């Protein structure tokens, strides 16, 4: 091996040192990239996981005990029907308004094979007219015109959802439905109505209703169907079951 001069040795050392530095720099950068990628990956995975949790049913369907349907419930159809559909809804909720035509169609399509129960679940914290609209529904129910009022409330939801004179609008609906106005106005703010609405609301909460509309088909909470056909199929399955 030939002997290196002092200068050459120095040069070589310098080169080695630079290489080492470069290598260190590179590995440091790689490490940084790995750490950042890892962090982003963990965050993405956890968001995905949370979405899964949020989408999973919160209560075991077997554990949910739907409060029994009583004579004070607002219902339509055949009480002895094979399919009993209970809806917890808020007149001011846009999704409920979107489902209302489905429900109407189900009642028409299944006639005697379905029994539909409407329960109040006014989300009073987000919907300022949720309570008064529920009360209007109750007052109309007192005169046997709940479903007519239900129709008006849902189809005209946009016109009263932010109104400060919602009460007057509902009184106007009542007169359109040719209700006994004195009785309607008395029922509108009666303690009986408030009590029933609040009772249904807290019963709903206790069985895990946490959004509107929430449907129970033969006592089992169902995921809201995406289309009318899906909904119809679900009900049909229940009828075919027995």
């Amino acid at each position, binding site marked *: 091996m030939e002997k290196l001069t002092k200068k050459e040795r120095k040069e070589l050392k310098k080169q080695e040192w630079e290489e080492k530095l470069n290598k260190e720099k590179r590995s440091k950068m790689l490490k940084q990239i790995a750490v950042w990628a890892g962090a982003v990956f963990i965050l993405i995975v956890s968001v995905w996981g949370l979405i899964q949790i949020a989408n999973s049913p919160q209560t075991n369907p077997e554990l949910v005990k739907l409060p029994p349907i009583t004579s004070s419930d607002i219902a339509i159809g055949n009480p002895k029907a094979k399919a009993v559909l209970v809806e917890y809804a808020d007149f001011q909720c846009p999704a409920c308004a979107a489902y209302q035509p489905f429900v109407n169609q189900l009642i028409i399509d299944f006639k005697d094979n379905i029994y539909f129960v409407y329960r109040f679940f006014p989300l009073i914290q987000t919907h300022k007219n949720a309570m008064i609209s529920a009360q209007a529904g109750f007052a109309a129910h007192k005169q046997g015109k709940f479903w007519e009022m239900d129709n008006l409330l849902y189809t005209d939801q946009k016109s009263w959802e932010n109104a400060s004179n919602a009460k007057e609008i509902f009184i106007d609906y009542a007169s359109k439905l040719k209700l006994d106005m004195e009785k309607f106005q008395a029922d509108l703010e009666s303690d009986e109505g408030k009590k029933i609405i609040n009772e249904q609301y807290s019963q709903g909460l206790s069985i*895990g209703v946490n959004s509107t509309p929430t449907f129970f088909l033969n006592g089992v909470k169902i995921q809201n169907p995406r289309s009318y056909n899906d909904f119809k199929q679900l009900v049909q399955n229940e009828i075919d079951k027995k």
Partner: protein
Amino acid sequence: MKLIKNKYILPLIGFLAFLGFLDATYLTILHYKNAFPPCTITKGCETVLTSQFATIFGVPIALLGSLFYVSIIAVCLMFYHNSRKIFSNAIFFIAATGVIASILLFYIQLAILKNFCQYCVLSEIINLSIFFLSYSLFKKGKKKEEAKSS
């Protein structure tokens, strides 16, 4: 008095911010699903989560919370790779903003809504912890600077 070793402060802040991120993101997802979570410990968390204070200019507070925690995590990583003072200061100031928001939101629950939601309270506790931890980072950065200048 030193309760926690210095080298644990940063990972601890990162971990807490991650927990906070899970908490806030869960609420954000539920907000957009138009649902609220099961409230087991405290009473009335649906009241809190559906109140007018749950959103600000249409943006859910929970979403702001998620972004807040992501920014804490990001700055922690920056500081981890390069312990410059600017990063520890940034953590401290972001954390301070979080604490101010937390105090405000806690006050709203206590005094206006008179209901608590455990998810929100948890997030407020996390913010307070992050703030105290980041304060020690901030102080350390300052000390270093003083040592340098003298």
